[in-house]
């Protein structure tokens, strides 16, 4: 019997590896594929080159008035001149440090809570949900020795962030209560919750905002001068809590029946079962859903323009109507689009990261 000698491995043929192999496989694997590649490349070229030329190569970046926009490309001067307005609205300039500080604190908390390696998550969450809102309110609105800045002066990106964050933070507890109510065995409570959830989910946000701005004042005796921002916020929270309730419901459904039974068999009461066993697990499953809801809420806040609040989109539209700067809608809208995109895209990446982590965690 001859001894087994393994054959030495040979390098793969050139068509399989390296740049050529890659291109053959991914771009020119067949005739239709080659046609698609060439066609796409042509379209890409004919769109991208003029756009890049306009937006970067031929653009004007510095200056103070439209007279500085001479090169024929994009006039980013329009943005840089009004940048502060777009960020803070009519918030007094000498108090910009207040929203800045609030924002930096927010980022700090977000880093603390979203990066798994940093410890004391629970403490962070408790601080972020109790101390931070009070602190942010005082910083933004005033009191305790700080000058009061009424909400009608708030605007720009700051207002967008305020609306989205308050909306989501208030909507989560309401959503949890609604979702639990929807699973309740008491028919009246279940009905009330179902009607509430389906009503707000069934109508467009814009009608809710109209309702908040024209109908809501009629609901209170003499309360017609309620803050406009407050009214919009009430509408957004109602809308959002209905969507949140569905996210929570999904989280509850993902738990196996055994968890409920295990808690029952140990003799835990309904609320002990919910708070000690069910919700802590459901919350983890729900986080990607909550982030996705936050993304859509963040995009939806732009609708408040229609009832006359000036978020970042509103501020830009107001600037576009300024006779001194007529004719730069492309720059204005692209800037807003870019700002929204940065926030939404990074949040969606984070949510995908969480989902992947959750999936691998389950398999183990």
């Amino acid at each position, binding site marked *: 019997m001859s001894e087994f000698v393994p054959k030495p491995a040979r390098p793969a043929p050139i068509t399989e590896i390296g740049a050529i192999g890659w291109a053959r496989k991914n771009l020119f694997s067949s005739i239709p594929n080659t046609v698609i590649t060439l066609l796409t490349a042509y379209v890409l070229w004919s769109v991208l080159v003029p756009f890049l030329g306009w937006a970067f190569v031929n653009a004007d970046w510095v200056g103070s008035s439209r007279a500085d926009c001479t090169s024929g490309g994009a006039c980013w001067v329009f943005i840089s001149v009004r940048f502060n307005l777009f960020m803070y609205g009519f918030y007094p300039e000498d108090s910009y440090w207040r929203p800045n500080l609030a924002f930096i604190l927010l980022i700090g908390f977000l880093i603390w809570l979203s990066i798994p390696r940093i410890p004391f998550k629970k403490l962070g969450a408790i601080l972020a949900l109790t101390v931070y809102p009070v602190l942010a309110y005082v910083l933004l609105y005033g009191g305790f020795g700080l000058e009061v800045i009424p909400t009608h002066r708030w605007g720009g990106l700051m207002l967008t962030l305020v609306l989205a964050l308050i909306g989501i933070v208030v909507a989560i507890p309401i959503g949890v209560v609604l979702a639990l109510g929807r699973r309740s065995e008491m028919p009246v409570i279940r009905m009330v919750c179902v009607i509430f959830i389906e009503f707000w989910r069934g109508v467009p946000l814009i009608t809710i905002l109209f309702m908040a701005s024209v109908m809501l004042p009629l609901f209170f005796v003499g309360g017609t001068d309620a803050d406009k921002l407050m009214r919009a916020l009430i509408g957004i929270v109602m809308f959002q809590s209905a969507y949140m309730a569905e996210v929570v419901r999904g989280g509850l459904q993902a738990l196996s029946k055994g968890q409920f*039974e295990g808690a029952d*068999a*140990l*003799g*835990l009461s309904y609320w002990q079962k919910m708070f000690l*066993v069910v919700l802590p697990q459901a919350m*983890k499953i729900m986080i990607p859903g909550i982030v996705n809801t936050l993304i859509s809420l963040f995009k939806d806040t732009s609708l408040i323009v229609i009832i006359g609040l000036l978020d970042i989109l509103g501020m830009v539209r107001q600037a576009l109507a300024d006779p001194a700067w007529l004719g730069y809608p492309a720059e204005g809208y692209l800037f807003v689009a870019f700002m929204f995109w940065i926030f939404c895209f990074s949040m969606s990446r984070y949510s995908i990261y969480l989902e992947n982590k959750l999936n691998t965690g389950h398999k183990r």
Partner: protein
Amino acid sequence: MTQETGNIITLKNVNKWYGEFHVLKDINLDVKMGEKIVICGPSGSGKSTMIRCINHLEEHQEGDIIVDGVILNNDLKNIGQIRKEVGMVFQHFNLFPHLTVLQNCTLAPIWVKKMPQKEAEKIAMKFLERVKIPDQANKFPGQLSGGQQQRVAIARSLCMNPRVMLFDEPTSALDPEMIKEVLDVMVELAGEGMTMLCVTHEMGFAKKVADRVIFMDAGQIIEENDPESFFNNPQSERTKLFLSQVLGH
């Protein structure tokens, strides 16, 4: 409330339906303090349903269930009382994956029995030692093998100091070599005089520890006897058939 010699569980003419389907038909059963009962039968015969009725995970519609002198109706106080007295081990363990092994064991003592945390942890460690996994106390259930998880589940139930333990097919989700480690714990528990009701297909276990074996089919108790007579001299044809299939290979 109950004398040590009396019945700790009594089922009298218990009937239960799932919608139209009649799952339990006139079940009568008395369990004495310290008795070990093994319940077997083909799947769908109602054996799990019966023991799940005893701690009200399922609701029966007719008849009486009396546990330790407390009658089980839908009075929440009685349900709470009975669940404190009755421990349960599930087929799929039902451990809480977000809590460590130790936290799983102390959850109910702390929240239901209002026990101080220190004391609850001491008791938990005692039982974890009894099921031979004290070193895993700070791990999460997901990090343990199936057999270890099931032993944690047993320890979790024992921490409530129950007078009765219910086992709902505790080994049927486990690999063969893990079955032994769980059964060993159960045999030891039986040796200490715990009252046990066990739904299982482990006939070796039944022969070794059971005081009585109950055979169920189609929602009825067909036969009950001491293990020796049950295995060597079954009374009904149905039992014979079942035993020949279970012991046949």
